C-alpha cells in the first residue's frame, strides 16, 4: 500500500505539527509519500523529508499553487494519484477544501476528520458533533481521507527521505486569489497549543477579550472563542472552537463565559484538563469540567492572571 499525503504549507512554510500528526495516522496504512505544493515549497519539502515515517517527498513548485486554490491543487493531486491506495491530509481548512474535490474527480467518497484507523479500509470518525462515533468501511479503489490531527501524536523527526520535483498539472484557471487577512500573532497556534484559553458571549465585548488574552499570555496559551463570541465580533473567526470551527485537545483548556453547548464541546471535550469559569452554576460546561468555578469572570479572570 502506498499513501500520498498532502503537506500543510502556508506561504512556503511547512505546518510541521499538522503534517507530522497526519504522518502518524498515515504510517499505519503503508509507505508514505509527502506532496509539498506551493509557489515556493522546496524548503517545506526538505523539512517534511525529516519526518519519521516519510519515505519520499514530491515537490510541486509553481506560481499557480501560490494560494492553494482548490482547482489547480486538486488537478495536480489527480495527475499523481495513479500509484496510491490512499490520498490523505491533515483536516485543515485547506485540505478540507481540496480533498473532497480530488475524491469526486476520482469517483470515490471522501472520509473527513478521521480519528481512528482500524485497517486499510476501515476508519472511525465522529458524527453529530462528536455525539456518536461511526466506524465505516470503504469499498472504493482509492481512499481519500483527512485526519483530525488533535487525536494523533506528533511523528518524530530525524529522517532523510529523498526529495523529487514533479511538474505542475494544467491549471483550470477558474479562480484567482485576491487577498488574505491573516492575523499576525506571537501566540501558539490554536490547534497545536498545549494550553488554550477561550472566551464566550459572557466576555461581553471585543475590548473585554483583553482579559482572556492576558490570561492566555500568562499561561503561554493560544486564545479560542465560542461561536457566539465570534458572531458578536468579540473575536476573529479563526478562533472559533467547536463542531464547525477548530478542534483542540490541549493539556489545559480554560473556558470563560461559555455555556457549553454541544457544538462547542465537540471542539474541546478531548482536552486533558478542562477548567470552566461561569457565573451560572447550572451551565452545562460544568458537566465536562475537571475544575469548575462559579464566579463573575470580570473578578475571577484578572485574579487568576495575577496569581498564576
Amino acid at each position: 500500500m502506498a499513501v500520498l499525503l498532502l503537506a500543510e504549507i502556508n506561504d512556503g512554510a511547512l505546518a510541521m505539527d499538522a503534517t507530522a500528526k497526519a504522518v502518524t495516522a498515515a504510517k499505519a496504512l503503508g509507505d508514505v509519500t509527502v506532496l509539498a505544493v506551493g509557489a515556493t515549497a522546496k524548503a517545506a519539502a526538505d523539512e517534511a523529508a525529516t519526518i519519521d515515517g516519510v519515505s519520499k517527498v514530491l515537490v510541486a513548485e509553481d506560481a499557480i499553487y501560490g494560494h492553494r486554490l482548490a482547482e489547480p491543487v486538486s488537478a495536480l493531486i489527480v495527475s499523481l494519484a495513479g500509484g496510491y491506495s490512499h490520498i490523505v491530509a491533515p483536516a485543515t481548512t485547506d485540505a478540507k477544501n481540496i480533498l473532497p474535490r480530488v475524491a469526486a474527480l476520482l469517483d470515490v467518497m471522501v472520509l473527513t476528520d478521521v480519528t481512528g484507523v482500524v485497517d486499510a479500509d476501515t476508519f472511525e470518525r465522529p458524527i453529530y458533533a462528536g455525539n456518536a462515533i461511526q466506524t465505516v468501511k470503504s469499498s472504493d479503489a482509492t481512499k481519500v481521507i483527512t485526519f483530525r490531527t488533535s487525536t494523533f501524536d506528533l511523528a518524530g523527526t530525524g529522517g532523510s527521505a529523498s526529495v523529487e520535483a514533479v511538474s505542475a498539472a494544467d491549471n483550470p484557471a477558474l479562480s484567482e486569489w485576491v487577498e488574505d487577512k491573516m492575523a499576525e500573532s506571537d501566540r501558539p497556534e490554536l490547534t497545536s497549543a498545549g494550553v488554550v484559553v477561550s472566551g464566550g458571549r459572557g466576555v461581553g465585548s471585543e475590548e473585554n477579550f483583553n482579559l482572556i488574552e492576558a490570561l492566555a499570555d500568562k499561561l503561554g496559551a493560544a486564545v479560542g472563542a465560542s461561536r457566539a463570541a465570534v458572531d458578536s465580533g468579540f473575536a476573529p473567526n479563526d478562533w472559533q472552537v467547536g463542531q464547525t470551527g477548530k478542534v483542540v485537545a490541549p493539556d489545559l483548556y480554560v473556558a470563560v463565559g461559555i455555556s457549553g453547548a454541544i457544538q462547542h464541546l465537540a471542539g474541546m471535550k478531548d482536552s486533558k484538563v478542562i477548567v470552566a469559569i461561569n457565573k451560572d452554576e447550572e451551565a452545562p460546561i460544568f458537566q465536562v469540567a475537571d475544575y469548575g468555578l462559579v464566579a463573575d469572570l470580570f473578578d475571577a479572570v484578572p485574579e487568576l492572571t495575577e496569581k498564576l
Partner: protein
Amino acid sequence: MKVLVPVKRVIDYNVKVRVKADGTGVDLANVKMSMNPFDEIAVEEAIRLKEAGKAEEVIAVSIGVKQAQETLRTALAMGADRAILVVAADDVHTDIEPLAVAKILAKVAEEEGAGLVVCGKQAIDNDLNATGQMMAALLGWAQATNANTLDVDGDNAVVAREVDGGLQTIKVKLPAIVTTDLRLNEPRYASLPNIMKAKKKPLDEKTPADYGVDASPRLEVVKTSEPGSREAGEMVGSVDELVAKLKEKGVV
C-alpha cells in the same frame, strides 16, 4: 441567473443525539428534524441575491426521504421560488452520501442552467463538509467554500472565505459553487403569510434514476458507538483553590 440551493433535512441542532443500543446508528424516529442550519444561511443568501436583482430564480433541492418536503416548504416560505425533491430513500435512517448527492445536484444544475449554487459548508449530522466541493469537481466549476461574504459581480463572484489563519478572499468565475459559513448572514424567519403562500409554490418530485445516478453507498457503516464520556470533576470555591489544584495537577 438561476441560483440552486441544496437543502438537507437533518436532526434539529438542539436535539440531544442518542446512539441506538444495537450500534446500528443514531435514533431518528420521532425526533425533531429541521433544515441544516448552514442551508438556511444558503437560502437566505440566494434570496438576498434575488432581492438585489442579481438572481432571477431561486430553486431549492433536497435529496432524501419524502419527509424532506417539509424542509423544502421551509425554503419556499423563506422565499425560494420552487423546489425539487429527489426521493432517494424510504427509511429516515438512510443518509445519502455526498458523492451521490453531488452527482444528482450536478445534473440538476446542468438541467436548470444554474449560474450559481449556494450550499451549506457542512451537514450537522454526518459532519462531512464535502458535497459542495464534490459537486464543483463533477461540473468542472470553481468553488469557494466557507463563505463569510459573497459579492456577485457580472461573470464573477468575490468570496471572503473563513480559513484557519483568518480570511482569504478569492474571485471565482461563474458558474460556481459557494458554501456558506456561519457569518455570511442571519437567516430570516418565514412569516405566516409566506408559509401559506409556500404551500402553493411548485414542488417537483424526482428519483435518482431520473438523473441516471446510482445512489448506492460506497461506505459501509460497520457500527455506530457512543463516544467516551467525560466525568464531571469538582467545583472549587475560589481562585486560590483553583490555582492550587492546577499546580497539584502539574498543568500550570
